[in-house]
Each structure stands twice: as structure tokens, then as C-alpha cells.
């Protein structure tokens, strides 16, 4: 994977970025600007918004985010393991078995303690 192989990604970025940029900048530059109170309000599908949109989130969202990170890292460990399993053979299997086993207990515990339920 020498740096030349990254040329396509570079080209992709060079095309996508300006396209998005133009789409955002052009209307704000060319379009008429006479804001009034009604237009400034958040769109509540026609309803009149009675409170600020940014209310406090219930804690479940935070739980989901934390658990997502933990299991995300767990998955990340699987990538190199999968790639080099042919050399690791049974030893690698036991090793990853222990790793996943411990996290499985954690997962069962989290599940039993109702962190996933949405009341």
C-alpha cells in the first residue's frame, strides 16, 4: 500500500469537497436575505415549537454511546486476529475465546441490568 495507491481516495476527496462546498456556499451568497421571526424558528412540521429544541437527552443515549464504543473496540481487535489466524491456529482461537468470553459476560450483565431497554 504505497502512497500511490491512495491517489484514488485523494481524487475522490478533491471532487466531493468542492461539490458540497458549492452547494452550501452558493445559496447563502446569492439568495435574498430578509430574515423575520417566523422564518428563524425551528421547523416542527408546521406546529409552533413550544420549547427550545435542545432539551436534555435521557441517559439511555449516553449508555448506548458508551457501550457502542466498548463493543466497537472489541470488534477492532478482531480484524488483525482474523487476518493472521492462519499462522495463529488453535492458539489464536483460545486467546480470542478468552477475550470474547470475558466481554460476553460483560455483555450478558449489561443486558440483564436493562441498559438496552428503552422505557
Amino acid at each position, binding site marked *: 500500500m504505497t502512497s500511490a495507491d491512495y491517489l484514488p481516495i485523494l481524487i475522490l476527496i478533491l471532487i466531493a469537497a468542492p461539490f458540497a462546498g458549492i452547494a452550501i456556499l452558493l445559496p447563502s451568497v446569492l439568495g435574498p436575505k430578509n430574515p423575520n421571526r417566523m422564518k428563524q424558528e425551528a421547523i416542527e412540521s408546521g406546529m409552533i415549537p413550544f420549547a427550545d429544541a435542545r432539551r436534555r437527552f435521557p441517559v439511555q443515549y449516553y449508555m448506548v454511546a458508551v457501550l457502542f464504543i466498548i463493543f466497537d473496540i472489541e470488534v477492532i481487535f478482531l480484524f488483525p486476529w482474523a487476518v493472521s489466524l492462519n499462522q*495463529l*491456529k488453535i492458539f489464536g482461537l483460545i486467546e480470542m475465546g478468552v477475550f470474547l468470553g*470475558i466481554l460476553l*459476560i*460483560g455483555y*450478558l*450483565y449489561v443486558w*440483564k441490568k436493562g441498559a438496552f431497554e428503552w422505557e
Partner: protein
Amino acid sequence: MSLPTLDFSLILPELVVLITALLVLIADLLWPRAASRGREQAPAVLALAGLILAGLLTLLAGEWSGATLQGMLVADALARYLNLVVLLAAALGLLLSWSYLPHFSTQRSEYYALYLLAVAGMLFLGKSIELITLFVSLEILSIALYVLTGFHRGQLAGGEAALKYFLLGAFSSGFLLYGAALFYAATGATRLADIAAQNAGGFYMLAGLALFLVGLGFKLAVAPFHMWAPDAYQGAPTPVTAFMSVGTKAAALVALFRVVQAAGSVPVGVWATALAFLSLLTMTLGNLAALRQSSLKRMLAYSSIAHAGYLLVGVVAGTAAGFDAVLFYLFAYAFMNIGAFAIASLLERPGFYAVQDAGIHAADGLFGRRPWLAVAMAMFMLSLAGIPPLAGFFGKLYLFAAAVESGWAWLAVAGVLNSVISAYYYLRVVVGMFMAEPSASAHLRLPLPASATLAVALTALGTLLFGLLATPWFQGISR
């Protein structure tokens, strides 16, 4: 591609502790929700059994000859003694939490699981001789303790304490990692043995060691980095404080000693002077601040900081005898400090929403109500002040002897004078107990919980006899 064969007997005690932690979690899952009578104390019993088994394994498992597990974890005499002091502190702390926990929390199995994970973290930290393992085990122990500090959800101070401890702990881990990176940059190896072999001098090694000292300094609550300690110690539930104040110091000190030995190329005079200055600062700040505390627990927190200063004197000496003295002091410190916190926990009024800390005068007139409790507390206080023939005196004697031997006489003088300063606020508690009438704020959790009384009895016995009897076993441990 030779797959390594791992000799798991080297880390048997740690595995036992880990498996017990997992068992506590599984037991909580499988046990039917319908709470049978034994349901509450099951996790505690399981945890205690695990600790005792691990302790026995450490004691009886023959001679720990320094074999390493892939050059990552070593099982030498130093690690063995660390295991013992951590398991001792953990068992005593657990006895305290047995009766302390039901007052404010229903999440018992989580508490004991995290408690055991913290213990496992300390045991691994004591054995790790490789930078990454050292960092990961330090993180295990830290995260577990952050959560345990904030375990009393009802009490606001607990939350504040946990946040402070977390922020500064994470900050210090950053320093530690940066130090480890610089070590790797200077020597190209992460195993401490290879780093020592490289003997590479230069700026990177020095900067790496400095950052490492800062990182571990935070964990040890050494002077300039001790800001979190009083709040964290006061906010945390008392059994956690008792265990934390001994366990973290022991493990962090062993890690510090191993790293300092590995960074052989940095001239001893350099880091020793830095540590000596830190030690002096810690002792003096800890003692002076403790003088004017109104809460007994906060006073013990500052005294615990001061004792970190005394412990550093042994590391500053830099000799093997120096660190033997540190290990000896750690055991003596475990007995007297956990004993003092045990009685502080008995004097508290733990409630669901607010734990009313035991004030300095909470112990007034204790001799009238429970003479033996007062005698035990007097022993802990006098031993912490370093009065013979208690364990604290012998601990300080060996520490200062090591310091004088390696040319740090002025540090020994500072240590001795600090002991005199500390005698004042320790005596203030003794005065209250024996010579004053019970004050309005005096409160004693009656009937005295059996487990806490057992903990007090064990620590009192240890404080009295450890100093006199245990010296021969503490020769030539750390090479």
C-alpha cells in the same frame, strides 16, 4: 512461527481474583431475582473467599524466583510481598464494606466486582515489567477506583470526588503514556529489561522518566499532584478510601521502583534529588494541612498524603534496603491506616442521601462508651505518629535508616520533624477520646457490626505485633 507456551502458574493469584470477580457477576445474573436471605451477602462472601485463596496461593506458592511471563509480568519476591500487602488491604477493606454497603446501595455485586477488578489491577501493576502492561493494569485499577469513589450515588460529594479523581487520573495517565512513548523513542523497546540493557542516556530518557514520575506522582498523591486526594478520599465510601489509600500506593510505588531501576542510565542523583524534594514537599504539606481539618476522614486523607511522603524517602534512598523498608512500612501502614479508617467508618452516620462525616470531635468520650475501641484507635493514632513500640515506629526507623545510609540524612531529619508535627493532630483525636466528654456530634453505629469489629481487631493486633516480630522477613526482598 513458534507459538509461545505460557506458564500461568506465575500469575495464579491474579487469575483467582479475576475469576472471582467474574463469578460475582455471573452469580448476580443467575441468582433468581426473588431475594433469598443469603442473597445480599453472597457477593461479599464470594469476594472474601477469592481474596483469601489468592493470599494463600501467594504465601504458599514456593519461592518466586523472578521468572517472567513473556517478559511482561514477573513473579519475584518484590511482587510477592506486594501481592500480600494489596490482598491484606483488600480483605480488610472488604470486611469494612460488608456492613457499610447495605446502608446506601443496592448494587452490591457491581461493588464487589469492581472492588476485585481494582485488586487485580494492582496485582498486575506490581508484576508488570513492560510499559504497555504497566499502563493497562494501571488503567484497570484506576477506572475501577474512579467508579468506586462515586459509588454512593445519593451523596453529592461522592459524585464530585469521583469526577475530580477521574479528571486528574486521566490527565496523569496521559503523562504516563507520553513518558512511555519517550522511553520507547530513546531505547526502541518497551520491556523494562531491554530499556535497562540499552542504557541509552540523553534527553529523551530523562524527559521520559520525568513524565513517568509525574504520572505515578498523581497516582501516589505526591505533593504538587495531590489536589484530588483529600476530596476523593473524603467523598468515597470509607471502606473504599481505606483500601484505596493503601493499595494504590503500594502498587504505584513498586511500579515506580521498577521503572527507576530500569532507567539506570539516568544518573541516580538526578531523579533522587527530584524525588527527595517531592517527598519533603509531600510530608510537610500533608502534615500542615491535616493540622486544621475539622472532619476526621479528611484529616486521615491528609495524613495519608503525608505518609506517601515518608514512603518516598525509601525510594529516594535508591538501595535495595531502602525499598525493603518501603515494603515493611507499607504493611505497617496498611494495618494502622485501615484500622483508623475502620473506626472512622464506625463513627460516621451513613444514610441514603448524605453520609455525615465523623468530625474531629466525633470520637470524644469514646473511652467511656467503648473502651476497647478507644484503645485500638489510640494505638492507630500513636502508631501513625511513629511512637515505639508500635509498627509505625519500626517502619519509620527502617526508612530513615536507609535514607541516612545512602547519604540523605537531611531527608531523615525532615521526616522525623514531620512526625512530631503529625503527633499533634493525632494526639488531638486521642485527647478527645480519653480526656473529653462525649460531644453532641459524637455518634457510634450501634450495635457494632461484627465484620467491622473483626477488621479493627485484626488491624490493632497487626499494629501492635507487626513492628516487633516481622523484621526478619523483610531482608533482601528487592534486588
